[in-house]
């Protein structure tokens, strides 16, 4: 079974209620039709009556009672930060805002948007209404790279993070990125995460600010999630290839076997995922937002119906509260 087949099968077993606030977009409609036909999620359109599709629930944003309720949500969250009643009312007509408010209220499990809206709009709405999960300080993202066989006889899925959101993460932000990515990997891929913080240096072969930052992040992850296999700094080959790890980092808990690659900054992460996508013919699924209280994903505006379909399946899996989060038990014990 391929990764995508497994993804679809596991999402279908939960059949989460996922909102699509870009209801007029033909690619979104195509994905919704397929999601419904194959029973992957319970898709719900959020838009105007003219966007309705046969057999698909539509939440009408022109309903004045709904708009008033959404405006109330915005006032609770943004009112203390300066949003006026009038601004909240104006925002409450936006399908994107309505969808995130409904997820916040627990009337849906997640939201998928971004085929029409910009990433800034999608992420702003998500931060306003959904916000970070308990004890998470940094919202970040990951790509799930479905790569051809390179260290065994079969292809694999690697998590690349963060390639889309945090430009130059601090040590604390890097730790958040790693823990969020590891938690989501358990939900989305369903295997044991092994986290490598990548660098140009392996175990002190180089020196510099970025290496100090990575080491501080590794220490923080070890403190917050001691059950997680993590190491750094490691070069890419030491992280991925056993023979190299045996030479450069022989006692590493993840060397040669890493499946979550944490990049030191957005430049390296974004460059790496695109190179692997183009040069190694990997399928890049994402960016998947991680660290949110409830899943809300941002699509590329170039997304195809198939991309939207796959992101919806991932969003459904992210909604699984029963999966281990790695972070919560540890931080509760330490009181942080």
């Amino acid at each position, binding site marked *: 079974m391929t990764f995508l087949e497994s993804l679809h099968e596991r999402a279908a077993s939960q059949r989460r209620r996922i909102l699509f606030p870009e209801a007029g977009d033909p690619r979104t409609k195509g994905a919704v039709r397929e999601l419904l036909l194959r029973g992957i999620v319970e898709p719900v359109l959020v838009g105007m009556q003219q966007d309705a599709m046969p057999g698909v629930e539509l939440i009408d944003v022109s309903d004045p009672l709904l708009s*008033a*309720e959404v*405006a*109330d*949500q*915005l*006032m*609770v969250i943004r*009112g*203390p930060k300066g949003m*006026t*009643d009038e601004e*909240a009312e104006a925002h409450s007509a936006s399908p994107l805002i309505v969808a995130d408010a409904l997820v916040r*209220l627990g009337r849906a499990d997640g939201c998928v948007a971004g085929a029409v809206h910009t990433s800034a709009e999608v992420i702003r709405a998500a931060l306003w209404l959904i916000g970070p999960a308990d004890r998470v300080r940094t919202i970040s993202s990951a790509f799930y790279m479905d790569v051809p066989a390179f260290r065994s006889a079969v292809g694999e899925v690697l998590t690349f993070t963060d390639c889309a959101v945090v430009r130059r993460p601090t040590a604390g932000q890097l730790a958040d990125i790693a823990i969020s990515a590891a938690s989501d990997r358990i939900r989305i891929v369903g295997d044991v995460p092994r986290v490598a913080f990548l660098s140009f240096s392996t175990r002190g072969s180089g020196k510099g600010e970025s290496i100090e930052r990575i080491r501080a992040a590794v220490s923080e992850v070890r403190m917050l999630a001691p059950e997680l296999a993590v190491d750094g700094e490691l070069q890419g080959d030491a992280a991925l290839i056993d023979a190299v790890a045996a030479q450069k980092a022989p006692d590493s808990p993840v060397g040669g076997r890493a499946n979550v690659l944490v990049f030191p900054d957005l430049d390296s992460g974004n460059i790496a995922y695109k190179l692997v996508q183009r040069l190694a013919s990997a399928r890049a699924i994402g960016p998947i937002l991680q660290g949110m209280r409830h899943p809300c994903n941002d699509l590329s505006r170039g997304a195809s119906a198939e991309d939207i379909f796959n992101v919806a399946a991932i969003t459904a899996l992210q909604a699984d509260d029963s999966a281990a989060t790695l972070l919560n038990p540890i931080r509760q014990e330490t009181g942080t």
Partner: protein
Amino acid sequence: MSFSIKKQGDIVVVDVEGQLIVGNRQELKQKVLDELERGEKKFLIDFAQTGYIDSSGLGVLVSLSKKIREQGGELRLANLNDDLRTLFELTKLDTLFQISDTRDRALSSF
């Protein structure tokens, strides 16, 4: 559930009986705004008889607080039970409102 309004000196005191929720929050908002339009400046909402406030109720309280402040007035809250106090703390609205344990303390705080 209902709202009763009375004047105590120059303070408008609103008692919320039962719940403040999506189904009735507009009624509270309108009653307070009517008083504000009449020129009242000091408002106390007493939750001694309130068991539950939903997020729409909270939204209306934030909205009223801003509108009253814009008119140079003040809004105080009193008598939140433990659950409601926790709700205000979780939503960080305890920093927006001046909240008193009793009606008397709230009245004397103006």
